[in-house]
Each structure stands twice: as C-alpha cells, then as structure tokens.
C-alpha cells in the first residue's frame, strides 16, 4: 500500500520530495499559531476548492476525459448539504448531511456518466454534454425563487441563494459544540486534503491508475489487453465528480449559503483554468498550482476584480501558448533535470 505512494504516475517520488512534503505539512499545521485568524479563515476557504481541482486532474489529466461538469457536482452537493443540514437538524447531523451530499453527487455522476460513456460520447462531446448539464442546472436553480421551491424546511430561493444551514459541527463535552469555522475548518480541510491527495497517489500508481492512463493513450488497445474500458472510465468519472461534490458541500458549510452562480459560467471554467495552468498530468502539480492561483487571485481581487479576471484569462492563454503541459509541471521538470545534472557532474 505505502509502496504505491510512489510510482510512474506521480512526479516527486524521491527522498527529497518527501522531505519537502513533510516540511510543508509541518508549516501548514503550525501556520494557525502564527497567523491571524482572518488569514487562517481565508486559507481554509482556498483549500476547500482544491478537491474539485484534484478530481478534474484525475479525470482529465490521467483519464483523458475533459469534464466541464465540476461545478455541476459542486452544486448538487452544495445544495444537498444545505437542504439536508436544514432538514435533519444541526449538530452532528451536519456530518451526515456532508456524507449524503457527496453520495448524491457521486450518484448523479454515475447516472450522467453511464449515459455518456455507454452512449459513446467521447472527445469534445464529453465536454459539451457536461457543460450543457452544468448550464441547465444553473438555470434551473436560478428560477427557484418562488416559495413553492422548497424541500421540507429548506427554500432554494433562486438567484438569491439558499441560506440558513448550520456549518459543520459536532457536539462536544460540556454541552459546547465544535463549529468548523476559521482554524478548525482549516485543520479539517488539511486533514481531508492529506487523505485525498495520498489516496489518489495510491490509486494512480496502482493497477487502476495504469489502466486509466492506458485508456487515455489508446482506449482500443486497452480493451484488447482485457480491460473493460467503460467501467474504468465510469469509476474515474464518479471519483473525480464526487471530489467536486466534497468541495461543494464544504463551501456551503463555510459560507452558510450557496447560489446558482457557483454552478454556471464563469464558475464552471475556473477548475479548468486551475488544472490547465498547474499541469493536468500530475496530481501534485495540480495541488500546488491550484492553491497558488487561488491565493494570487484573492490577493488581486482585493484591489481590483477586473484585474483578477484579466489575469485569469491571461494565464489560460499563456498556458496554452507557452506551456501546454502546465506551468507547475514545467517548473518541476526543470528542477528535476537540474538536480539530475548536479548529481551527475563530477566532484
């Protein structure tokens, strides 16, 4: 199991990489003790989005399926969390709501994925169908302003968005509850990222990972080696989409609201920019790149929203033209080559 943390599908397999990994982890864990709580809350917010990017990296970079549907599943889980948290009552039930919300996202991915993959929707059309589903969902939720659009106690509320759900919390000893906000949300997000990131590394370097990259390269050849291509694609799609669901449910919990604008364009384009810029071919590059972009984006937005959007567009353009494999991967590869050359140099 631990052996599979390293392998052909992941960059960064050496001692040096894991030393850096632990250093970053220690810094991340210590950060709340030094930073002010406003910044910690902000960082927690950035981390929430990372799951969606990791899921897209799995589907697109490794599996060759470009899904425009990450915010579709983000929205399904985000709204489901709200509806469930409101109806099940708060407290520990918020975690049940989280689990069910992700399950609902996975289930919708299973259904949508089944029709696309078994219907042989491939290539560009995969993107078109997922984007259409996303836009339809955004439009649908947008027209739920009327009081008749309610699930139990929860009102969907159209473009104004749904609110009133409790954030994730668990009852604690002495009658006090722990609310996952600020630094506790930050630690929860770090723990989840650690789990998802390491889990994906193991998955990608396992038998399964070998098969999905083979399918990306040549689905027919993969089938002729005895692999049920459609099954592998469907599983990949469900996992990748469920990760978007995790982001969505955490997002709703974080802000205690969610609106249709989290689903439609331009939100739907964001994960694609993050992953393309970072380097869709590698899970670590996506993790680092997405986080950096979110921090940079936020920093600039504080000064000017327009500047931030222009930057986003420029980044996508620059990626396509200068580093089609992604910038973070490009930098990582250069470092790798440099270290190698150093190692080989005499003396």
């Amino acid at each position, binding site marked *: 199991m631990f052996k599979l943390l390293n392998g*052909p599908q992941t960059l960064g397999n050496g001692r040096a990489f894991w030393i850096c990994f632990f250093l970053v982890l220690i810094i991340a864990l210590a950060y709340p003790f030094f930073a002010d709580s406003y910044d910690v809350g902000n960082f927690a917010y950035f981390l929430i989005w990372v799951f969606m990017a990791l899921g897209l990296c799995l589907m697109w970079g490794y599996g060759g399926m470009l899904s425009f549907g990450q915010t579709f599943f983000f929205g399904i889980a985000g709204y489901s969390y709200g509806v469930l948290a409101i109806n099940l009552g708060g407290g520990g039930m918020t975690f049940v709501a989280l689990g069910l919300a992700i399950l609902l996202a996975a289930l919708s991915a299973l259904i949508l994925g089944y029709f696309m993959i078994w219907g042989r929707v491939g290539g560009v059309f995969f993107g078109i169908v997922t984007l259409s589903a996303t836009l339809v969902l955004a439009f649908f939720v947008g027209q739920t302003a009327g009081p008749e659009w309610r699930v139990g106690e929860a009102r969907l509320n159209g473009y104004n968005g749904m609110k009133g759900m409790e954030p994730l919390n668990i009852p604690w000893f002495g009658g006090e509850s722990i609310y996952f906000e600020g630094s506790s949300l930050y630690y929860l997000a770090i723990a989840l990222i650690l789990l998802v990131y390491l889990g994906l590394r193991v998955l990608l370097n396992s*038998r399964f990972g*070998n*098969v999905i*990259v*083979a399918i990306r*390269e*040549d689905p*027919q*050849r*993969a*089938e*002729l*080696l*005895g*692999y*049920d*291509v459609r099954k592998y694609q469907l599983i990949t799609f469900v996992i990748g989409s469920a990760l978007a669901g995790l982001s969505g449910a955490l997002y709703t919990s974080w802000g205690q609201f969610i609106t249709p604008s989290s689903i439609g364009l331009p939100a739907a384009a964001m994960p694609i920019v993050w992953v393309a810029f970072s380097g869709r071919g590698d899970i670590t590059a996506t993790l680092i790149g997405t986080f950096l972009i979110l921090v940079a984006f936020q920093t600039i937005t504080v000064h000017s929203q327009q500047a931030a959007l222009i930057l986003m567009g420029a980044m996508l353009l620059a990626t396509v033209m200068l580093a089609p494999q992604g910038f973070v991967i490009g930098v990582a590869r250069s470092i790798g080559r440099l270290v190698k050359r150093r190692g080989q140099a005499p003396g």
Partner: protein
Amino acid sequence: MAEILQTAQVSKTFGGLAAVSDVDISVNEGEIHCLIGPNGAGKSTLFKLVIGTYLPSGGSISFRGENVTQRRPYERVKRGMSIKMQTPSVFKELPVRQNIHIALQHHIGRAALAREEERLLTLLELAPDATKPAGALSHGQQQWLEIGMALALKPALMLLDEPTAGMSPEETFRTGELIKQLNADGMTMLIVEHDMAFVRQIAQRVTVMHFGKVFARGAIGEILADPRVAEIYLGKTHEH
C-alpha cells in the same frame, strides 16, 4: 484434434462492400495456422471480427466451445484470445516498461510481476530502452513491443496480423523462431502473413482468402503446390 476457434458463415459488409463473406475457418488447438491472401482480401477484417472490434453482419464465431459472437473484445481477451493488429498501437507516451507492465498486471500478481517484466524486456531486446517512451522506439521495435504485450497475456490463441512488417530478414527469421517456440510451449497461433518464406518457416496449415472468401485451405505443402494460389499471388506479391 479439438477446435479452439471456429467461424461459421461470418460476413462483414462496409456500405456495399463485402469485405468478408461467408467465411468458415477452423483453428485446431495447438497448431500454427497461417492466413494468406492478396491485399484487400479481408484478412484484417476477419481478425477484427474474431477479436470483436467489429461485430459481424452475419454468421457466428465460437471460441473454446462457447459462442462469442456478441461478446465484447475485453471479454474475448479474458477468455484467452490476444491480438497484435496490423497497424501497431502501443501506448506512445508511456515508458516501454509500463507498456509491458499494463499488459502483465492483468493476470500476474504483484510478486511475480517484476521478474516477468524483466524476462519479457530481455526477450524482446528492449531492456536498454525500458525507460524511453514507447513512441520513441523504431517502427520495428514498436512492432516487437506490441507482440510482447500481446504475449504478456499468455493467451490460448494468439492472433498476429502481419507480425514481421517492417522487419529485416534477420529479425523476421527470429520472430519465426520465437513463434515456433511459443507454439511448442502450447500456444495456438493464427497468423496473417505476406512473406511466403516466413509462412514456409512456421506454418502447419494455411487458409487462403481472396475477395473476402476462403479460396483454398490445406496443409502448407498442398497450398504451396496449388497453381491457383500461385496465380492469385503472382503479380500481387509486390503490392504491399
């Protein structure tokens, strides 16, 4: 002798063109069976029908006593078929070693995998290039790699479509010896081949196709002596 593969009246039409029509062939367990015929005779199409990338317009295919006509390709592979198609397709961006690994992991446990991987890389003389992306290999090497991947499945029936295309005479001869070796170890072979010297080197029985139909069949000696076969081949030999 028991039949491992049998096609009954299989046909495949593309638009109006009957690429394969009413073909009956049977391959016995343990033999090396060659399928020959001029370009466009329908040999590759027949292979695709056997492995399942095409579904037949008519007729049926049975493998190891089971009707597999409607089975998907991966199911046929799981039942013991393996194929090297005419146009080589390896996983170009993945390292050579990983190409082999992906084929092997299908049925070999983790413990024995590394050993088997080395054995195959050595057998294919690809060990020095193991870390290169498969797309960087020469055409001949890609051909070897693909044969190796097909072999890695340890199939009961191996389908090879023009395995020696693009190989030097020396490489061709070695491929022939390898095929005979594998056959001696129990693997049934169905091979499409143009090179008659190569067919003479390996074949036991031969089926000749022409215009989508079976034109002649028999032991290698009979076929080579058949003047009609020589006729369809004469003037066609340079076409490929």
